């Protein structure tokens, strides 16, 4: 049970990869905490301070 699963939407993943965003540190705002495209857009715009790493 070591690794925590990261939930991210397919569109968000594409966007993150293209913009070199490390989404493993983001906490998502979708239901159940999924990272959404909007979360990545905010990260690209530098809006969302990336929260502390998951334990």
């Amino acid at each position, binding site marked *: 049970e070591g690794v925590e699963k990261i939930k991210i*939407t*397919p*569109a*968000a993943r*594409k966007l993150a990869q293209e913009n070199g965003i490390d989404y493993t540190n983001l906490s998502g705002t979708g239901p159940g905490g999924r990272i959404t*495209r909007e979360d990545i857009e905010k990260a690209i715009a530098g809006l969302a301070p990336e929260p502390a790493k998951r334990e």
Partner: protein
Amino acid sequence: MRKRIVIIGGGPGGYVAAIRGAQLGAEVHLVESDRLGGTCLNIGCIPTKTLLHTAELYRIVKNGAKIGLKTDGLRVEWPVLMKRKEAVVNSLVQGVTALLKANKVAVYKGHAVLQDERTVKIDAPTPQTLSADAIILGVGSVPVKPPFPGADLPNVLDSTAALSLPEIPSSLVIIGGGVIGTEFAALYNSLGTKVTVVEMLPEILPAVDGQIVSVIKKDLSSRGVDFLTEARLSEVRDAKKGLTAKVLTGQNQLEINGEYVLVAVGRRPNTENLGLESVGVKTEKGAILVNEHFETNVPGIYAIGDCNAQTMLAHVASAQGIRAVEHALGYRSFYNRKVLPYCIYTSPEVAGVGLTEEQARNQGLSYRTGIFPLAGNGKSIIEHCENGLVKIIADTKYKEILGVHIVGPHATDLIAEGALAISLEATVEELIALIHAHPTISEAVAEAAHAVIGNPIHWPPGVKKDIM
């Protein structure tokens, strides 16, 4: 301290909010002046779909010679169907009553008004006031009654009256080609009524994707429904048998005869006599203005469902009710206004979610479409229903699914996959990679996704798909 929530209106907005509030531990009070279940259960979704279920089975089987059915003597027993409609409605209303009781929601029968920002007054039968930490308004909508000459003639109907006719009419003129008008057209056409639909706009079903509209319109036309578009009702008059509707189309004046005229030109928020002004709740053209939590300008007062006029659908009312009560109780809540599916229970069915092509174009988005005609889908051929199609709209860059539109068998259940795809921000690749069971209509969803970026498997390359 348990929070007290008072809800006005027991439709799918109000009763669902009440149950959700109770589930979350609130003390919930619900006031309903008429029957629990609101428009939806009593005079909307449920009775229309009950009638349509029998009518469409009847039509399909009546035309069943080709699929091996011999149908001498098949007919609809209208009085039995009317009773069944009552029975279904009653059982669902009783179900809601029982659910509210099981969830310990206090239900009051009477007309409620806002007395102040935290108090609701019930005026009948025994006047009483309820104080609240939050108030949720779910007062619904009522049919718009345009004031044309003849509007008050006895055989001029609204949608409620059209559910309880003494017998199947020989002919019917429907004013308004929106969802409700179109469903009634399908219903009575299937039952053998001569139906004419009169629509003011250039096309029926204005909110639906244009290519989908042309399929369903062609289908209904081929079954004998007459559509008059850009046509305006000027007057209804008594005729020898039934009524005559005078209609202007361009320069022409037409007279259409019908046993009844059904007026289905829209619904408006039911926000009069609610005390909104006295507590300062803002409205626009009768619709209560709300923020993204469905809270009005008066903090602690929410307005959900038809009365805020955002999207007049039962499941949207329920979803807003859940969101409002969750917000009132301090929970984080999700409401994705991009993912509000709609359904039209014609046969074939119509359903859609997300952007139509017209919306994508008007918003100036860079998009691509993929279409798969059900003539290439085995199950549609088995169900003798090859005229449908699935249309997907995806953004050009990431191929993210923006809209899914279906006209075909089971469209109203199939649309859930499209809704999930949009809400999870899926791309066409994920829909293509998903293995869809065979033989199902849902295979056409993957094929339409395929068509966005290339060629579907079951359609010849280079053959135009969008002309049915």
